[in-house]
């Protein structure tokens, strides 16, 4: 008997934890961001306070979610009818969500010229099926981060810093031949970087209408084969074919490689985690191909179709992405704003001698020539396309088939997917 009482008491106490619903007169706009806390806590609190003062009828609720659970949390909330109004998405998520009709077409809410403030290539990143499904927010591009000391020890000088892809291949070989260590880490087999290289080199992955794969052209095969050979000859780490791109900076900061291509924002991580490597680090512009185009990585802000306050949400989205706020954002960590005015701010052109500033300036210059090189991302089944390509590279590198065979097989898969976007119609793909 006593135990039943105890049990009920426990249950009663637990109801203390049930949140009481508050009666709100204000309209609530929920704004979700991806892993920006605690770095940007102060920034967002100030940003939001200011907006709420100017728009007293609204209450902005800011929720930041870590990458690890981002997709589950978004899906769970959407399924429960509890999705945010305004959401920060990476380009992968944006492509997926756009394909699922989750996002509002912003051009329905604002006149067309309001979008002119953005860098055209950045805005392009947010257009799917002729709808503007997001506003480009903070951008990133790649620079070459290298270890001066390691270079010197391998008998290399500033003049050896690669500028083209063939120079990059040569230097990768020379470095290992001279020093016995790996020159470069680049993920070629998972979320492979090769499509970006191909894009920059001007080798088309598909035809312009995206109906047929073209990366197995003789040009494409030749280009890719150089990297497959590098791997087979032992110039790239064995795990390069299975390690994801998120581990790029790890290889560098642990001193395993002498150079990596990644965003300037990662210099901070090297500084935090490997001071000795950091003090030997220098930056240079990223390697580009014949087109001279750099890769553009963009975070964006979208409004969900499920929002009850779409017009106000769009207004808030424009507020977050305005030049003034974006410049302030970029001053906290090395990212780039997406508006033309902001990118021309002296912050991105005046050198103060520090490594971060040098990297920032290099990246900023590159951004004007940056496009989303992976055009296939626009396809709703881009993840399957990417998988097929990745697997081809892995097979070729492991020597199971020749590069041509691997790419031909992948091209077949691509053609099947490109012909039938609806998965139920494609057996086993």
């Amino acid at each position, binding site marked *: 008997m006593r135990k039943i009482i105890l049990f009920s008491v426990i249950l009663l106490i*637990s109801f203390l*934890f049930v949140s009481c619903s508050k009666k709100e007169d204000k309209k609530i706009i929920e704004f979700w961001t991806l892993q920006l806390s605690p*770095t940007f806590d102060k920034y967002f609190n100030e940003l939001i306070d200011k907006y709420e003062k100017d728009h007293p009828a609204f209450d902005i609720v800011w929720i930041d979610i870590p990458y*690890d659970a981002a997709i*589950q949390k978004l899906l769970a909330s959407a399924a*429960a009818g509890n999705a945010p109004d305004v959401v920060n998405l990476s380009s992968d998520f944006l492509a997926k969500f756009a394909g699922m009709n989750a996002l509002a077409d912003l051009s329905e809410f604002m006149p067309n010229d309001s979008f002119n403030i953005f860098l055209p290539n950045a805005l392009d990143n947010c257009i799917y099926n002729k709808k503007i499904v997001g506003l480009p927010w903070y951008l990133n591009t790649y620079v070459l981060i290298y270890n001066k000391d390691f270079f010197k020890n391998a008998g290399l000088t500033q003049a050896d810093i690669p500028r083209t892809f063939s120079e990059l291949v040569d230097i990768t070989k020379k470095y290992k031949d001279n020093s016995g260590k790996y020159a470069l880490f680049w993920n070629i087999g998972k979320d492979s970087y090769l499509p970006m290289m191909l894009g920059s080199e001007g080798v088309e992955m598909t035809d312009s209408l995206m109906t047929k794969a073209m990366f197995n052209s003789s040009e494409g095969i030749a280009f890719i084969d150089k990297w497959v050979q590098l791997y087979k000859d032992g110039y790239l780490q064995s795990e390069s074919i299975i390690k994801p791109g998120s581990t790029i900076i790890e290889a560098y900061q642990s*001193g395993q490689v002498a150079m990596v291509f990644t965003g300037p924002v990662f210099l901070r991580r090297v500084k935090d*985690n490997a001071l*000795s490597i950091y003090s030997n680090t220098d930056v240079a512009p990223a390697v580009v191909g014949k087109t001279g185009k750099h890769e553009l990585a963009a975070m964006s802000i979208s409004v969900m179709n499920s929002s009850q306050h779409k017009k106000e949400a769009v207004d808030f989205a424009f507020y977050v992405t305005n030049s003034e706020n974006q410049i302030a954002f970029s001053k906290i960590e090395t990212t780039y704003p997406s508006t033309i005015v902001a990118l021309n701010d002296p912050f991105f052109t005046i050198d103060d001698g520090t490594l971060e500033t040098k990297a920032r300036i290099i990246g900023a210059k590159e951004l004007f020539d940056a496009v989303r090189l992976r055009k296939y991302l626009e396809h709703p089944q881009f993840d399957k396309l990417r998988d097929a390509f990745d697997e081809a590279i892995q097979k070729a590198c492991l020597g199971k088939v020749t590069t041509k065979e691997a790419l031909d097989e992948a091209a077949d898969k691509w053609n099947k997917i490109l012909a039938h976007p609806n998965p139920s119609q494609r057996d086993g793909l």
Partner: protein
Amino acid sequence: MKRKFGTSFFILIIILIFAAAALFPFLWLLGTSFKGAEELFSYPPKLIPQNFVTENYTGVWNAVPFELYFLNSLIVVIVTVILNVLISSLAGFALARLKFKGKEFLFVLVLAAIMIPKELIIIPLYTTVLKLGLADTLMGVILPFAVEGFAIFMMRQAFLAIPADLEEAARIDGCSFFKIWWNIMLPITKPTIAVLSIFTFIGTWGDFLWPMIVLKSQSNFTLQVGLSYMMGTFVNNYRYVAAGSVLAVIPVILVFVFAQKYFEKGIMAGIGK
């Protein structure tokens, strides 16, 4: 005599190898949490820091509202363990020792609960939790997992191992089932209850996904959720993460050590009365 020494020695070596393998990653974690920025990554990984620093601990403690997250986790874990142990030992007892209609069916249901892939049901589960008004509450974190299939199964097996005559004797004495359960069965299964408590503690304490999905307000965050913010593009200080992980694992180790006394041999010996 000689042969016995040989096998003992052999066993000792095996034990030591296992112990070393078990210890290594944890020691590396511990060492990393005391390392300074200059010496984080080395291959092969170095266990002992060159310079002992404590700044990682103070750093992570101040980077996030550590005490708050810790407290939230503590509340969640304690309530979950109590509920889980009570409910599953009630159910386990019934499934092991009582006869009733639908017993086999209920056992199958309990088994089914173990098999369900958690990652998938989490999506519709959130909808249910939202509709019950439990979203963004600690109770919303606790209640769905207040009882687990494997806990019931574990208790059932534990009760099955107890000889039936013990119960017969009590029944003859006129005890109600509840009294039998509370006064006789539970004390005997103390070791299993201890293990269940430890496992529930670890599982709940380390759970990240479900609290992440249910909670929105920072004031409700549990420790694992809070720590996940330490690894991102802009903030990724491995030493802080290491220190945070060590702090997070200390309560688990304490619980484990405390529960050891329930494993002494021969607990059954005194029960014969």
